[in-house]
Structure formats: C-alpha cells, structure tokens
C-alpha cells in the first residue's frame, strides 16, 4: 500500500516536472536575440532582419553593446552559461575560446552540408570561422568582413601646387603611396604644424587591440610575424624587418601624427580627419561611412580611400577586423535549430546582396565581385582589394593574456618613447614565453 502510493507520487512528480521542464522547450521560438557591438553595421543588420520577420514571423533583435564592454558582457554570459542571447557576432580572436571552451556550437556539418562554406571568401572563412587554423572545423559564419585601410584628402593630393612642391622635394609624383616608405614621405610632406595640418593619424590606443592592429599592417608587410608554425618567436617576432617596421610606426607617430592622438583608435582618427588635421588616416573600413557623409565630414566630397601599402620586399598585408556569427551553446535545442535556420537564410546570395547594399560588409564571393557592391560606397573598391591580403592576430585561447602585453610594450615604445624597438619586441617575447610554455605550445 505504502509502496504503491509512493510509486504514484513519484509518477505524479515526474509528470509535473516534465510539464515544468518540458513546456518552455516545446514552445515555438518566436524571438531570436543577437548580441553585437554598438555601431552602424548593427543598425544595418537590425534593418535587414525585418525581412526575416515578415517571412517567418520570428522577431530578431540585435542587442548592441558599446565596443569597450562588448567582450566583457559576452564573457560574463559565458561564465554564467547563460542564454540571454541566441547568437553572438563575436570578434575573430574569440574563436579559440568559443570553440575550445564550449561556448559556441560547432557549425562544420551545417555549413558543409548546405554548401555555405563555399559561398564566402577563403580568407574570411579561415579567420572568422575556422578553429584550430587549417582544421576544417567551423564555428562561425563570416558576417562582417573588415580590415584596415586608409582615407586621404584628394583635394590636397590633387592640388597642382602641392604636386609640384612634392616633385621638387622627392623627385617623384605625389600620389597614393605604394610602399610604407612612400607613405612616410607623403606624411612628412603634409605635416605643417603652423597650419594645423599633419600627415597621418594612426592607431595608438592602449586598450584592447588598437595599437597592435595598427602596427600589424606594417609588421606583417615587413616580414614579421608573432611566431612561426612551431610557435618560435625568436628571430620572427623580433626579426630585422619587424624592428624596422616598429621604428617606422614610431616615426610615423612622432613626425606626422596630429597632437592629441597618443591614445587613439577609430573615433580619434576619424575626428582628426573630419576636423581637417590629417591628410591621411588609418581606419577600419567599417568606420568610413562617417567620412563619406557630408553631414559628418565636411571634406566628404574630396575624401578618397586606398588599401595598405607594401613592405620593402613587396609583401602586403592588412590587419583584420570583422566578425562571424556564432550560435550560443547554452540555449535549448529548439532555439539552436531556429538559429541554424536564421543563419541559413542570412547566408543566401540575395540576402547578402541586400546586406551589402544596406552598408554591411559581406564576405560572400558573388556579392564582393559584383558591380552592384562596388557601386554602394566609394571605399568598396579598396575594401574588396584589401580582403585578398588580410591577416589577423593570433586567436588561440591564450590570446587574451598575450594581447595586453603586446599592447603595453608597443605603446611604451611608440608613444612613451621608452627604450628601443628591439627592446620592445624582446619584451613581448620574454613575457609571452611563459604563457605559451604553460599552455604547452613550446617547451
């Protein structure tokens, strides 16, 4: 008797429990949340996903977090194994953590089965989607391609008097610089403190990854790299070319950077340009729309764009920005499925074309090669060219410990003027070695 009633109780408890546990899972997904940084492309995405709502009835919300705290917010959610968002459009460096620590859902099967991995350019798939590099395992669909490029003042470059003066001084025509040395010359030429004009505004900010990104453009083009395939840093990170690259970056800062750019990132370089202080500025392509708009840039009409110059041996690289969209591993299966469906929709050629037309930087091969894309914005030609020679900072899970070390070593030398370029790079090696040793990459 007693056993029976216990049994009955247990069954009732099970049923009740399954109703409670099961009911939210069984409910149809009506809303998807995507977390991204607070910037214009997120607005574009919010506009684009209205089409998805009309088509499927599922409301998609793009949660925007300020850049400075975007990473911390997402990581806090990971720490709580939280399901506050379904998808994250995360930085390329996060892939290692997302993949190895189980925060991202693996997309390999989904992307290969539907042929999605073939619709995007190989470089973007490698940097925004694949981890470990070369493994063929995918964790994100390349969403917003981005890289460093340059904006310049065409009115200054095309001024006949300037052209003549430049030719007299340097013995060649003034034009878009082909190499870093030429860029330095042009920057020096336009630096006129008495007139409030300076040659070039570059990234110098110590937070997150700014100065590393800016320096990488020169560093990779001069044959430097963070480490070789065996994680050997000696002679690679501090090679002769790397030292020269860092010296050039510092010279560019000391000779030709507008005052006040000692801690500058995308906003500061854009500000230097729109206030008329800089003849050329380095920035991510994603921040150029503000320069192409005459309401935010009084030189908009005469603003031109070019991609990164070459190193002395013809090597050419641009530091990679941009993000891929990944699925949060902590949401339930129904929401995962709904997220897969969304990405499948998003990856279609016509949706990607509309994404590009709204101002998003698609990674879709077809769209990138289309005339329609080149016509959308004045800088898209330079962007399409740049995306063929991009290269990124390391994305192993230890990147988080390595990045601040590199940031502060580079900032000390470039802005603070402490020590030599060789010492700065040697310091990075010295501080990185124990980290890579602990993680087992090197002995």
């Amino acid at each position, binding site marked *: 008797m007693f056993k029976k009633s216990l049994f009955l109780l247990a069954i009732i408890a099970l049923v009740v429990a399954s109703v409670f546990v099961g009911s939210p899972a069984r409910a149809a997904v009506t809303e998807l949340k995507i977390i991204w940084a607070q910037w214009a492309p997120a607005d574009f995405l919010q506009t684009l996903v209205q089409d998805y709502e009309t088509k499927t009835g599922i409301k998609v919300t793009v949660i925007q977090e300020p850049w400075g705290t975007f*990473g*911390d917010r997402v*990581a806090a959610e*990971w*720490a709580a*194994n939280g399901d506050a968002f379904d998808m994250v459009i995360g930085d390329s*460096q996060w892939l290692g*953590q997302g993949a190895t*620590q*189980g*925060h991202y859902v693996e997309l390999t099967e989904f992307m290969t089965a539907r042929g999605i991995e073939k619709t995007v350019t190989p470089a973007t798939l490698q940097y925004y989607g694949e981890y470990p590099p070369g493994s063929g395992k995918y964790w994100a669909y390349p969403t917003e391609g981005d890289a460093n490029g340059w904006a310049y003042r065409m009115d200054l470059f095309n001024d006949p008097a300037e052209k003549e003066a430049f030719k007299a001084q340097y013995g060649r025509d003034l034009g878009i610089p082909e190499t870093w040395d030429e860029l330095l010359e042009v920057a020096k030429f336009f630096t006129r*403190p*008495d007139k*409030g004009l300076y040659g070039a505004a570059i990234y110098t*900010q*110590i*937070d*997150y990854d700014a100065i590393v990104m800016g320096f990488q453009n020169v560093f990779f083009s001069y044959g430097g790299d963070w480490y070789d395939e065996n994680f050997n840093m000696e002679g690679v990170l501090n090679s002769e070319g790397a030292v020269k690259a860092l010296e050039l970056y510092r010279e560019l800062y000391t000779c030709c950077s*507008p*005052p*006040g750019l*000692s*801690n500058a990132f995308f906003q500061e370089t854009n500000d230097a340009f729109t*206030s008329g*202080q800089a003849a050329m500025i380095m920035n991510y392509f994603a921040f150029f729309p503000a320069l192409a708009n005459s309401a935010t840039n009084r030189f908009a009409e005469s603003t031109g764009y070019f991609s990164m110059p070459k190193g002395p041996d013809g090597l050419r690289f641009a530091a990679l920005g941009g993000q891929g969209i990944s699925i949060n591993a902590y949401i339930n299966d129904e929401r995962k499925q709904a997220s897969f469906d969304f990405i499948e929709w998003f990856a279609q050629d016509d949706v990607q074309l509309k994404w590009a037309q709204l101002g998003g930087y698609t990674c879709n091969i077809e769209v990138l090669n289309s005339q329609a894309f080149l016509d959308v914005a004045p800088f898209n030609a330079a962007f399409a060219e740049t995306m063929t020679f991009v290269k990124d900072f390391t994305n192993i899970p230890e*990147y*988080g*410990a390595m*990045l*601040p070390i590199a940031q*502060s*070593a580079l*900032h*000390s*030398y470039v*802005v*603070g003027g*402490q020590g030599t370029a060789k010492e700065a790079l040697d310091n990075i090696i010295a501080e990185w070695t124990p980290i890579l040793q602990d993680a087992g990459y090197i002995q």
Partner: protein
Amino acid sequence: MTALTQAAPTQAKQRAQRRHMSDGALVRLFIFPTLIILILWNVFPLFYSLYLSFTRYSVIANRAPEWIGFSNYTAILSRPTFWQSFATTGVYALLSVGLQTVLGFSLAMLLRQKFKGSGFITTLTLIPMMLSPVVVGMFWKLIYNPSYGIFNFLLNPTNPRLATDMLANPVSAMLAVVIVDVWMWTPFVMLLCLSGLNAIPDYLYEAAAIDRASAWFQFRRITLPQVAPLLLIAVLFRTIEAIKAFDLMMGLTGGGPGKSTETVSIALYRLAFSGQFNTGQASALAYIVLIIIICISNVYIRYLNKLRGE
C-alpha cells in the same frame, strides 16, 4: 561649561536609563539590519573570491577550479610589472590625496567665514564631485586635447599648439590624472572640513585672542585638533578610493603611455576581464590590495582613535 564637559556617563546613570527600556534591545534593533545586509551581500563574494585566489581558474573556461595553493600569490609578487603598478598607485594616491587634503582644507578655511553668497559659492564648488567618473574621464580627454581642448588654450591662449599633449608623456600623464582627481574630489574634503570648522566654538578663539595668542598658535592648537577627526575620515575614504581608482584612469589614459599610469586597479581589470579572464590570479591580486588597504586603514583608525581618546 567645564563642569558639563567633564560630566561623563556613570554606571549609575546608565542603569537608570534602563528603567525606560532595554538598551540592549535598542542596540540590536539599530545595528542588526545593517550587519545582516552587509553579511548577506558580502560573505559570498568575499569568501568565494578568497577561495578562487588559491585556484587555477578562469570564469569562462567551463572547467572546475583547480587548487594550487599560494602559486597565484607568488606569481604576482614575483612579477616586476605588478610591483611597478603598486608603485604607480602609491604615487598617485599620495599626490592626489595629499593635494586634496591641503586644497580642501584651505578652501574650507577660506569659506569658513560667511560672506554674502558664500553658501551658494560653497554649493557650486561641489559640482565637480557630482559628475559621473566615467563621464569625467572621457570629458577631460577632450579638455586635454592639444588641438581643440581648452586646457592648453587657457595655459597658452596665443599659441595653444605650442603646449604639449598632457597624456602623451609618462610624467605629464600622471600629473594630468592627478589634476582631474584633485579637481573632482577636493570638494569632498572641503565639505567635511567645513562641517568640522563650523563646529568649533567661538569662545575658544576669543580666549586665545584675549591671551594674544598668535594666528599660528590658534591654528595649531585650536583649529587643527578640532577639525582633525572629520578630516581624517575624509582622508581615509579618499585613500581607499584612490587605491581602488579605476573609472577615471581608464577613461583618461587607459593606464598609458605604456604602463606609466597603470594602477593596481587597472592591472586587476586587465587580469580579471578584457579577454584574459584569469579569475584565480585576479582574486589573489585583489586580496593583496585588500590587505594593503586594511593595513593603511588601521594606521588611520588608530590615529583617529588616539585623537578622539584625548
């Protein structure tokens, strides 16, 4: 008057008070809510991070904490960059709290005697303190901008371009941060000093004036000792806050150039967040900071009690 001052509560009197109600019940009623709330909200974070400080753990790694004893502490203490950040914090706290104390006290002395509109002026000077530190950090970046900021413009209105970028040089960057902190928090010290000053009875000065005591004597023997307790509380809290300083420096310099303004709190933030998420080591560093603050506070409090005891 003297009779009143010396009238200390005697045991008999205290017993007499209990007639009306139980003092013990009153004390419990008054203190327990505070203590309970503090315990509820602090015990978990405090002990959890203490435990984590002895483990290898990253909050985002999806791996259980692994007990490693004092390794985190030895790792931190053997790293020269951390000593450097402690030194930076010390310089920063000393400079900014020192200046705030001197300026705040002087300002209070100036505003002590009422004049027409003095109440209004005093309240106006409190405004910097009311601003959000995040906004202050960002906004002073605009003020310090060598091209379109007003700082250099006011220093050298004819040719502001000649002035330097305060935030680009290791020494001037520290100075720049100290200036902002002093600007923001001097009113805090000033207000507490003013309350203390207003409490000093006039007859003390009268007696001194009749005795023809020098102004310096009046200051040393009357003003200073009377204000000291409140001044010390102000300085104690400013010191604690200066050691923990984060928002302002993050907004203004991000710890740069290089590491020249990187205080312990910024080093801590870099360890605990921003991609590293080395929770174990960050907790250990936090506890080291906590121990330092406890030691410094103890010195202050002892001094405070000594002042009060006399």
